[in-house]
Structure formats: structure tokens, C-alpha cells
């Protein structure tokens, strides 16, 4: 284990000299968590996530984390993560696909309990029939759990988003969980060059007493101070409390926007702003779209690309403004339901110009040519 010093997060992320490493997405997780000053990680194997949590186990063995274990199933793992977070430590875990579904009841519970857990989701198809292949359908189910959702395009995003997720999640006025989503196989198992921060630097430790709720340690303000959302009494105030509680979780997400701008440079990135045809995509669909944009350019078609980095909170104003003058909006996705398309359609005016697709799912790769075909169609 290399001796690490705590540094100012801004310095570590934006100023310290980075080193280039040719690694897989799973290794990116290891490198990020190594620098995140995480107290505890809990794991459970599921393809395509397993490798990343093995590697987190390895750095625990080296001494970078204080505690680590394999739980008995994802519901138990996410439950234990909530117990650890309520006890006041920084906790990390990861899952994907069917694991996400198995653990599902815990995600809104994390948000409702104001727990700043960071969870990596290596997305994969959901049964039945059995599949282990990439698919982003689980993100559709998670849209309304109160979690913030970052969608990494590739390994570099993954590294930065994981570290920044801890910083943003732990802000007192935010203090809700963040899911960092990575497309299984396309990112987790792809080896590429990643610029990583110095190995001897780490984020400052989590201060449990900065939480907007009391820590469950019997060491802070005492007694009769429950932390969980127990408002199931029978009177109007209880209903009002529950309604307000739900509003507050959404408000927390709104408050994160400022920090997302500060650390991620915004909820979206745009290429060729103002083009007649705009592609809106997240995750691997962005990478494929970049290729398609370049191909279209060669053919003389001017296409723009909006990369959605953050799905919750949703970049409503950004997408409204950036697609306002576009004649066509193409939304390529790696799932059958087209959740990103749905999100956009419900938020912009003249939404008949939004093309649902192209879409692939069930593990299929989306060739840039497929997106190009859609661009050509729209350009006619």
C-alpha cells in the first residue's frame, strides 16, 4: 500500500498531474475507490460487475479500505450498506442487471434515509430469458428512486464520476445516494487509456456529522431521535410529512445541480451546437454517436451531439434549449423501452421531431452505421 495524503478535492481532480494507464473499466473502479478514502465496501458477485468488486477487495487487503466483505445477496448487501452509512462511514458497493432488481427495495430507502452511498451499476439485461449481456433497461426502473444518476460514456468518465459522486453525494443539502452507471462489457471489459490522479492522494474523509439527519451512533444529539422515515401515524400532519418528505428528496436532487456544474462541468456536453439534426445520447450510445457524427460530416451532413452525463436530476432546460431549433432529434439507446427518448419527449415542445431510436438490446452492439442511417433519413 502506498502512503496517501488527504488533499483538497479540487486540487486532486483538476490540478494534480494525471498519469495515463491502459486499463479496463473494472480496473478503473479499483483506481477510483483507492483514491476515494472509502471506509467500507460490500460486494456480491454478478456478471459483469464481479471483477470490479474483486479488485476493490484486493485494495482492501492492501489496506486502502478499513472493512470489506461479500454479502449473501444484493438485497442484503444494499441493506448492510445502509446500516454502515447510518453508522457514519463512507461506503461503496456495486451491482448490475438482475442484482439491481434483487436489491431494488433498498434504493428508494437509501434516498428517503438521506444516505450518501455511491453505487456503481454495471448495466446488463434483465431476465427472462437469462442474459448476461449489456442493456441499459435497469436505468429505466431506477429513474424514480430518488437516487442521482450519472451515466459514464467510457472509462475516463467512470473514474472521474465515481470520485466526484462521493463529493456531491455528501454535501449536506444534497446527501442522497448516487448511482454511477456504466454499460456492462462495453465499458467494464474494454481496455483503454485512462488518465488517473496521483496514487498518493485521496479525498478527505466523510464527516458523518455533516449529514442532514442524525447519525445512528448514540454519540450525537441524544435520544428519541429516529432517523428513518417513520411517519405512518394517522393524522393529517403525518400525510403532510410524508408528502413533504418526498418533495424534499426531489429538492435534494435539484440542489445537486450546482455541484454537478462545479465538478462535472454540467449535466450535458454538446458537440456542434445549433445543428439542424441533434443526437441526444448517454453511455456507450454517446461513443457510437461520435463515430456517426464524424461519418455524417464526411457526407456533408451537419449533426450535433448532446451527451447526457446526468440523468437524475434531468437536464431539462439544457435539452430544451439545445434542441429548440433542431429539425430532428435522434435518441439512440441500448434498451427496448427507450427511456431517454421518453424523458426528452415529455420535456420539450414540438416533440414529434424526436425520433425514438435506433435502439438495440439483449446484448447487441449498435453500429455507428445504424445511427448514420437515421441521420441520413432525417437529413432528407
Amino acid at each position, binding site marked *: 500500500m502506498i502512503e496517501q495524503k488527504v488533499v483538497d478535492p479540487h486540487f486532486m481532480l483538476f490540478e494534480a498531474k494525471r498519469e495515463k494507464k491502459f486499463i479496463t473499466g473494472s480496473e478503473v473502479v479499483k483506481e477510483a475507490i483507492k483514491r476515494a478514502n472509502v471506509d467500507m465496501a460490500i460486494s456480491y458477485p454478478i456478471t459483469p460487475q464481479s471483477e470490479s468488486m474483486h479488485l476493490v477487495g484486493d485494495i482492501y487487503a492492501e489496506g486502502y479500505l478499513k472493512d470489506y466483505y461479500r454479502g449473501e445477496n444484493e438485497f442484503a448487501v444494499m441493506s448492510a450498506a445502509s446500516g454502515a452509512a447510518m453508522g457514519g462511514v463512507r461506503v461503496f458497493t456495486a451491482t448490475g442487471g438482475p442484482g439491481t432488481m434483487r436489491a431494488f427495495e433498498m434504493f428508494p430507502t437509501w434516498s428517503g434515509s438521506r444516505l450518501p452511498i455511491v453505487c456503481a451499476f454495471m448495466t446488463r439485461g434483465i431476465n427472462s430469458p437469462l442474459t448476461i449481456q449489456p442493456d441499459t433497461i435497469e436505468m429505466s426502473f431506477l429513474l424514480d428512486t430518488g437516487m442521482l444518476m450519472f451515466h459514464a460514456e467510457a472509462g475516463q468518465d467512470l473514474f472521474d464520476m465515481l470520485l466526484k459522486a462521493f463529493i456531491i453525494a455528501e454535501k449536506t443539502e444534497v446527501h442522497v445516494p448516487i448511482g454511477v452507471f456504466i454499460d456492462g462489457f462495453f465499458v467494464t471489459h474494454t481496455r483503454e487509456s485512462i488518465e488517473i490522479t496521483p496514487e498518493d492522494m485521496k479525498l478527505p474523509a466523510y464527516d458523518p456529522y455533516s449529514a442532514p439527519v442524525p447519525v445512528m451512533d448514540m454519540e450525537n444529539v441524544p435520544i428519541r431521535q429516529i432517523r428513518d422515515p417513520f411517519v405512518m401515524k394517522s393524522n*393529517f400532519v403525518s400525510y403532510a410529512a410524508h408528502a413533504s418528505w418526498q418533495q424534499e428528496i426531489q429538492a435534494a436532487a435539484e440542489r445537486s445541480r450546482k455541484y454537478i456544474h462545479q465538478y462535472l462541468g454540467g449535466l450535458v456536453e454538446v458537440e456542434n451546437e445549433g445543428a439542424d439534426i441533434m443526437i441526444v445520447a448517454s453511455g456507450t450510445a454517446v461513443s457510437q454517436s461520435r463515430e456517426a457524427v464524424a461519418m455524417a460530416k464526411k457526407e456533408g451532413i451537419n449533426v450535433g451531439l448532446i451527451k447526457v452525463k446526468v440523468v437524475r436530476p434531468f437536464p431539462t432546460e439544457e435539452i430544451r434549449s439545445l434542441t429548440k431549433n433542431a429539425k430532428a432529434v435522434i435518441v439512440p439507446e441500448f434498451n427496448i423501452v427507450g427511456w431517454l427518448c421518453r424523458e426528452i419527449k415529455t420535456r420539450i415542445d414540438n416533440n414529434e421531431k424526436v425520433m425514438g431510436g435506433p435502439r438495440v438490446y439483449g446484448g447487441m452492439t449498435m453500429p455507428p452505421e445504424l445511427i448514420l442511417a437515421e441521420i441520413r433519413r432525417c437529413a432528407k
Partner: protein
Amino acid sequence: MEERFSIRMSGLGGQGVVTAAHLIGMAASRDGKETAVNPFFGAEKRLAPAESYVRISNMPIHERGEVLYPDIIVIFHSHVVNMGKSYTMPFYDGLRPGGIVLINAEGPHDILPDDMLGLKKLNARIFYVPATKIALDLADTDLSSNLAMIGGLLGVKELVSQEAIRAAIQERFGGAKFIASGTTAALDDVLKSKFSKISQLVEKNMEVIVAAMKQVKEFLYDEESLRIAAAKQQNGGTTMKAALIPSARVNQELCIGCKRCLMTCPDPNVIMYHKAIKKAEVVEIRCKACGLCVAVCPKEAIKIDYYDN
């Protein structure tokens, strides 16, 4: 033209608020009216706020959920009025102008002056009926208080016929399996156990209903009543008579200070122990009168009694 009555019944869990609504609904249905009944309660047990709603009309009813804008409010317990044990604040929130409030109380009750003013502004008519007292006097059980409240309600407005109510009681308690929450079903059994035969249960409870119909009285907003109400608030709030409350009581002469009762009471800080004199004492306001302490007392020093708070 549609003639619809929306009734909100508020009380505490275990008082039979849900059952009362059910009986009225069954009776209305027998009378050939359209009706919908639904309870609403949290995941709580006895003595927590409980409400149920009855809608009666000559036209089909589609609306669901809480009756937010009632024509009639029926209040089973004084705590709904003065202790905030209500789903809404104030307890008459949403009452339609000219609406009716019926309260389980023995005498001219004292709704707090501000609430009184609010009700007056609405031209609300306030009625009271000593339902618990009538139930205890005639049926020998406070579990019949809800039937007395039905009587009070019918005394104010003949929403359903007496024949239909009688038939409803017969149907509800007369054998056929009725689907209710576990706790309600358990209380039904307790009520049934108080009477040797179902016919006796029906007759006694009809007596309760008829007596309550006669005894229900209207509160008048005259100066005297309002003055009394104001004076009562100055004296530190309500003096409205709550129902008689059963509680354990220790006969200190018989108590030997063995502490068995202290360790057998399911509720905290109900039975206190006087170290100096080595005697147990019951904090009556906290006692739920389950009788476990009576069962374990080796000296028969504890009894359950009704007292008046």
C-alpha cells in the same frame, strides 16, 4: 336531482368507528340507496386516530378516499376535538356550510372558542349525545358506544330506517363470516361474548340506538353557551367529558410491594413503585386496562375500575 350526504366519522382505534360506518352503509343499502363506505387508518392500533367515511345518495357514487368536504361529522371521542387526534386540523376542516357536527359528550361540551367561532361562521349545527354513558347503562358495555352514535346520528337526520339498522346489526353479528381487519374481527368477538344470544345483542343495541335518538341535543350559539365555552378555555382548555375510562387501581392496603405487576404491564411507566412505602400505584391516564396486573397480583390488590377524567 342528486341528494348526497358525505359523512366523516372520527374517533380512536377500537371505538368502532369503522363498524358504525359499515352498519350505516349496510342499512342504507337495504333501504335501496346508493352507498359507499370506507375506513382509513394508519398502521396503528387502539387509541390512535381512526376515521371512516360513508357516502349515501340516490345516484351512483364514484368518489373514493377520505371525505374531505363532509356534510356531517360524527365524533366518537373528545380527543378528536381537543387533543388533535384527528386527521385534520381543526377537526371540522372541510365541513360544508350549514353542515352538522355530532359529538359523543355528556353535557354541553366546550369546543374551544376559536373553533366555536369557526363553526359558527360556517353556520354549522352542533349536536351532542352521551353515547358511552348510554351504552354502559343499557348494554353494559362501552363497546356499544358506536351503536349509540348511530342512534344520535339518526336522531339528527333520518338517513336510514330503524328496520334497516336492525337488520344490519343482525347480519353483521349474526354468524356469517364478515371480512374485517384482524383487530376489528377480534373486537367483534369480544362484543359478541358480552351477550348470551345474538338476538339479545340485537335487542340491547337497538335499545341503545333508540335511547340515543331521544337524547341527542342541539347546542345553541346563545350568549350563555359561548360565555361558558370562553371561560373554560381560560381555565386551561377543555372540560368536555370524555367517555368513562377503565383503568387498573391498586388497593394500597393490600399491596405487599412484590413488584410483579410492575414487570407484567405491557405499557411503560403505567405502574410506578414508591420505594419508601414499598407500594405500587397506577397512573390511570396511561393504563389500557388489559388486566394483566390483576392476573399476576398474589394479593388481589389490583382491580379494573371505570373512572372519569
